[in-house]
C-alpha cells in the first residue's frame, strides 16, 4: 500500500486536504463515477485523508462490470461458433456470464483473441476474409469513438466479415438512475474525466438543474481527486450546484466534436440493461440502420432468452454506491478474483477488485 505522502507532490496533497478541512462544516457524500478513480482512491488512501464526514462512495463507471449477463452469454455462444474469430479487450476474458467466461470458451477451442484496439479487429477481418470477425464493443463514451471508427473503416473497405457485438453505455442516464433512487445518498458527483474529453459537459447540465447536485469533471490521479473533492465540497458548502471542470488540462467544455460526430454517424441512442442496475432508458448506443450490416446480433440471430445474475452477487448495490465491497457477505470467501461471482471482482476498474488488491493486503499486514 502506498500513501499519498510517498507520492510526488505530497505537499500539494496536504494543501488540498487542509483546504478541505477549512471549508467543511458538515457531512457530505460524494460519488466518484469512474472505476479508474476508485482504484486510485483506494490505492492511495485518499478516502482516509478526507475530513471526518466527507465520504466517497464508488460509482458504476466500470464498463466491464455493467455489461449484462445476457450479452456475455450471447458473446460466448457467438465465440463458440466454427468460423468465428471473437475479438475483445483483455479485460473481458475473465468476466463470468451465467456459467462461462471467454477464457473457458477459448480453452474449449473457440477462436478468442485479445486485441488492444477495435481497429486491430478490422485488420484481422481484412487478413482472414474466410472467417467472421466479431469485436465485443463494450465501454463508455471513451471507447465509442474507436468502435465508430472501426465500423466506418470496415465499411470503407467493404468488409462483409466484420461485426460488432455492441454493449456500449452512456454515463449521464446512469447517474440520473442513481439520483432518482429514493435511498440515494449521493450529493455530488466527481464525473469521469475522459468520458467528458469526448462528450464535453453539456449532458450534465440537465442533471444539475433537476437534482441540484454539483458535478465536477475530475481526473484520475491522486491530486486530481483531492482537488475534485475540494471543488465539489466548496459548491455544497456554498449551496451552489454547477458543472465545473477540475481536469482542465485535458477536458474542454465542448468535448471532442470530431469524435462525437463519428459516434452520431454510426450509433443511435438505445435503451440498455446494466448488469447490477437493470434496464435504464436511453442509456446505451446501438448501431443505426445505416450500419446495421455490422451488427453481430443481426448477423448471428439468437433467440435464447437472457438469463439472470447470480443471486449471491451484490454487484448492483456496489455499483450504485449503496454497499462497500467488503460489506458483501461473499467478498473474499465465495467471491475472489480466481472464483468471481460478479464482474467487479475481476475487472481492473471494478470496486471489489480495488478493495481486494489494496485493502485486503493492508488488513493482513496489520493483523
Amino acid at each position, binding site marked *: 500500500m502506498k500513501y499519498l505522502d510517498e507520492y510526488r507532490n505530497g505537499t500539494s496533497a496536504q494543501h488540498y486536504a487542509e483546504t478541505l478541512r477549512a471549508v467543511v462544516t458538515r457531512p457530505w457524500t460524494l460519488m466518484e463515477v469512474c472505476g*479508474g478513480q476508485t482504484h486510485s482512491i483506494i*490505492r492511495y488512501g485518499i478516502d482516509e485523508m478526507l475530513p471526518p464526514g466527507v465520504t466517497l462512495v464508488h460509482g458504476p463507471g466500470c464498463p466491464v462490470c455493467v455489461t449484462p449477463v445476457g450479452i456475455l452469454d450471447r458473446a460466448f455462444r457467438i465465440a463458440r461458433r466454427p468460423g468465428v474469430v471473437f475479438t475483445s479487450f483483455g479485460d473481458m476474458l475473465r468476466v463470468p456470464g451465467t456459467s462461462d467466461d471467454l477464457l473457458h470458451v477459448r480453452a474449449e477451442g473457440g477462436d478468442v483473441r485479445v486485441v488492444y484496439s477495435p481497429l486491430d479487429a478490422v485488420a484481422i477481418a481484412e487478413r482472414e476474409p474466410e472467417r467472421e470477425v466479431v469485436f465485443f464493443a463494450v465501454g463508455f463514451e471513451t471507447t465509442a469513438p*474507436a468502435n465508430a471508427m472501426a465500423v466506418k473503416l470496415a465499411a470503407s*473497405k467493404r468488409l462483409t466479415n466484420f461485426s460488432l457485438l455492441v454493449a456500449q453505455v452512456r454515463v449521464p442516464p446512469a447517474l440520473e438512475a442513481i439520483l432518482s433512487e429514493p435511498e440515494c445518498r449521493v450529493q455530488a458527483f466527481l464525473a469521469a474525466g475522459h468520458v467528458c474529453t469526448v462528450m464535453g459537459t453539456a449532458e450534465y447540465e440537465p442533471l444539475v438543474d433537476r437534482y441540484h447536485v454539483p458535478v465536477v469533471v475530475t481526473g484520475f490521479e491522486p491530486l486530481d481527486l483531492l482537488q475534485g473533492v475540494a471543488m465539489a465540497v466548496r459548491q455544497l458548502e456554498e449551496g451552489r450546484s454547477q458543472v465545473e471542470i477540475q481536469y482542465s488540462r485535458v477536458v474542454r467544455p465542448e468535448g471532442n466534436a470530431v469524435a462525437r460526430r463519428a459516434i452520431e454517424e454510426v450509433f443511435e441512442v438505445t435503451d440498455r440493461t446494466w448488469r447490477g442496475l437493470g434496464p435504464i432508458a436511453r442509456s446505451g448506443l446501438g448501431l443505426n440502420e445505416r450500419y446495421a450490416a455490422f451488427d453481430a446480433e443481426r448477423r448471428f440471430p439468437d433467440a435464447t432468452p437472457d438469463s439472470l445474475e447470480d443471486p449471491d452477487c451484490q454487484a448492483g448495490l456496489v455499483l450504485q454506491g449503496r454497499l462497500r465491497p467488503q460489506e458483501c457477505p461473499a467478498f473474499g470467501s465465495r467471491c475472489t478474483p480466481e472464483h468471481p461471482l460478479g464482474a467487479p471482482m475481476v475487472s481492473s476498474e471494478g470496486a471489489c477488485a480495488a478493495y481486494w488488491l489494496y485493502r485486503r493486503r493492508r488488513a493482513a499486514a496489520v493483523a
Partner: protein
Amino acid sequence: MCLGIPGEILEAHAGPGGLRYGTVRFGGASREVCLEYVPEAGIGDYVIVHVGLALSKISPEDAEETFRYLEEMQELADLGDEMQALERSEVP
C-alpha cells in the same frame, strides 16, 4: 479502458482506409495510432490514446506526470494488461 495512455507523436502518415495515422511513443514502446480525432495534433505533440485512437492533446509536462502515475499503478493494476496488449498487438 477509460484511462488512456499519453504518448508523443513521432511521425504522421496515411494509414488503413486513408485515415490519418501516426507513430506514437509511450515510454519505451511505440505503436501505430489513429490520429483522425485530433486534427490539431502534429509531430512532437503529446496525445492521450484510448484503445488505439488519440482523443485529446496534452502538454508534454502533464503527459510525463500522467505516464509516471500509470507506470506506478502498473505493478498491480490494469495498465499492465493494456501495455501488454499494446506490445503484443501485431496489427497497425
